């Protein structure tokens, strides 16, 4: 699908992306690519939890041919609806998600991974759809995804990777492709990388009232440039920028917008019985996003370190956000038990088309709480217990306190087994 950008600010970002790509593509050669400590691919892979990318090569140990690893993670996510957020709708949500990733280093120069994930999603919006006979299959949403990835060491310096996958839901399916390249420079004190990803989605437009308004498509491209740098013998950090472009149907099909009629009869289909009529959310069909992020970790002493991370984000829908995430890492029992504690502050401005109250239809309109003014504080941590050289267990728990009352609980349990 061709992108059709309409906003005046987009060309500047497009030029930025091209320049960054050109710069990265001209970096001289050095060694690279290998398994990270936890077995994911190369230097442009994501870093768990924190808002950054880049796996620092200085911190990784290459896997040996024949090594295999299976990572299994069960995650739980829940938030209730305290009546804040969107007052017209019940926004309660629960997600249970198992993920399985098998990773196999085949030779010195090739490895692959298989990724299967499943989500069971139970939400008030899905419950609503289930009341309509034609959408009886929407009593819960089941998301299934599969991804295959390969990694290659091309020469004494370059590492590249590629992946392809698909995912499917009741009202949605997607095909995705991606590629990445990275290399060490400056005597392995720095690693630079670039990745590109593209997703092609088909959406059945099932609206809040069960009506099916045909199907739509959505295309998403993102490019991430990343940089890892050893700064001193006790300090290193990762930095990066992600530019993403989306085109097509970007509204959330089942989201409604209430146009109020003060003094009119109450509407019993609304959560607060307000006076008004519900219409489908309408949002622009293009979106460009830019995120700049980084984290710097400092060793306090052996087994103890702290990290400062953050992200600045802006898009052409008017959302600007900032996050700050300090972390503390401590080895509690050497070789056996590691811990991490974190705090995350997040704040964002509302999208241009967001309003708490509408009294007349507008070209674009949304009451999605996630596009409103918002701030949150997250407190959490993780414990990792190494059973032996081949097995480890990890338990993570986070609590998100949101300014709109949609507080969240996130829990994960993971088992990693090496063959």
């Amino acid at each position: 699908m061709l992108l059709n950008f309409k906003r005046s600010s987009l060309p500047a970002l497009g030029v930025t992306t091209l320049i960054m790509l050109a710069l990265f593509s001209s970096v001289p050669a050095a060694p690279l690519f290998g398994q990270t400590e936890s077995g994911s691919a190369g230097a442009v892979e994501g870093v768990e939890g924190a808002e950054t990318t880049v796996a620092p090569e200085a911190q990784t140990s290459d896997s040996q041919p024949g090594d295999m690893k299976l990572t299994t993670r069960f995650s739980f996510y829940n938030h209730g609806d305290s009546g804040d957020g969107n007052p017209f709708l019940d926004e309660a949500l629960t997600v249970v998600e198992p993920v399985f990733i098998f990773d196999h280093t085949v030779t010195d120069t090739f490895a692959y991974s298989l990724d299967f994930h499943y989500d069971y999603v139970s939400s008030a919006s899905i419950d609503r759809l289930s009341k309509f006979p034609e959408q009886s299959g929407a009593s819960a949403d089941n998301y299934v995804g599969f991804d295959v990835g390969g990694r290659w060491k091309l020469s004494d310096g370059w590492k590249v990777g590629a992946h392809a996958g698909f995912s499917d839901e009741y009202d949605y399916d997607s095909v995705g492709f991606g590629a990445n390249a990275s290399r060490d420079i400056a005597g392995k004190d720095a690693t630079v990388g670039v990745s590109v990803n593209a997703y092609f989605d088909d959406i059945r437009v099932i609206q809040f009232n069960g009506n099916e308004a045909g199907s739509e498509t959505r295309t998403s491209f993102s490019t991430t440039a990343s940089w890892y740098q050893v700064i001193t013998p006790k300090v290193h950090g990762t930095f990066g920028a992600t530019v993403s472009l989306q085109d097509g149907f970007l509204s959330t099909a089942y989201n409604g917008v209430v146009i109020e009629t003060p003094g009119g009869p109450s509407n019993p289909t609304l959560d607060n019985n307000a006076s008004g009529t519900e219409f489908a959310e309408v949002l622009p069909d293009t979106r460009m996003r830019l995120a700049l992020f980084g984290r710097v970790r400092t060793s306090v002493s052996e087994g103890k370190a702290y990290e400062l991370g953050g992200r600045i984000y802006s898009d052409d829908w008017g959302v600007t956000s900032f996050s700050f995430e300090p972390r503390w890492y401590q080895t509690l029992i050497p070789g056996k038990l590691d811990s991490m504690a974190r705090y995350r502050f997040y704040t964002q401005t509302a999208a241009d088309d967001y309003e708490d109250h509408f009294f007349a239809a507008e070209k674009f309109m949304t009451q999605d709480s996630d596009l409103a003014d918002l701030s949150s504080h997250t407190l959490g941590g993780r414990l990792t217990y190494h059973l032996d050289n081949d097995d480890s267990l990890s338990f993570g728990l986070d609590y998100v306190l949101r300014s709109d009352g949609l507080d969240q609980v996130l829990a994960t349990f993971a088992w990693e087994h090496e063959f």
Partner: protein
Amino acid sequence: MPKLRRLALVGLLFAPLAATGCHTVEYYEKQLLSDPAMGFETDPTEVHFQQKVFYSMEGSAGGIGDSAGGGCGCY
């Protein structure tokens, strides 16, 4: 949009730095950097979950893993 343009300019400033890199520490000085407490984890299963939660429940995306939206339905 001015804010977006400003961020783009910051991105331009970062790019040349990333392309050059700096050799600051000799290999024999990197013992503490190899400490498990200093490792930047890349567990893809946790990245997957964090992306889904934060990308779908906040208005912003990017910076977790190497993608920023798409391929994931909204909750």
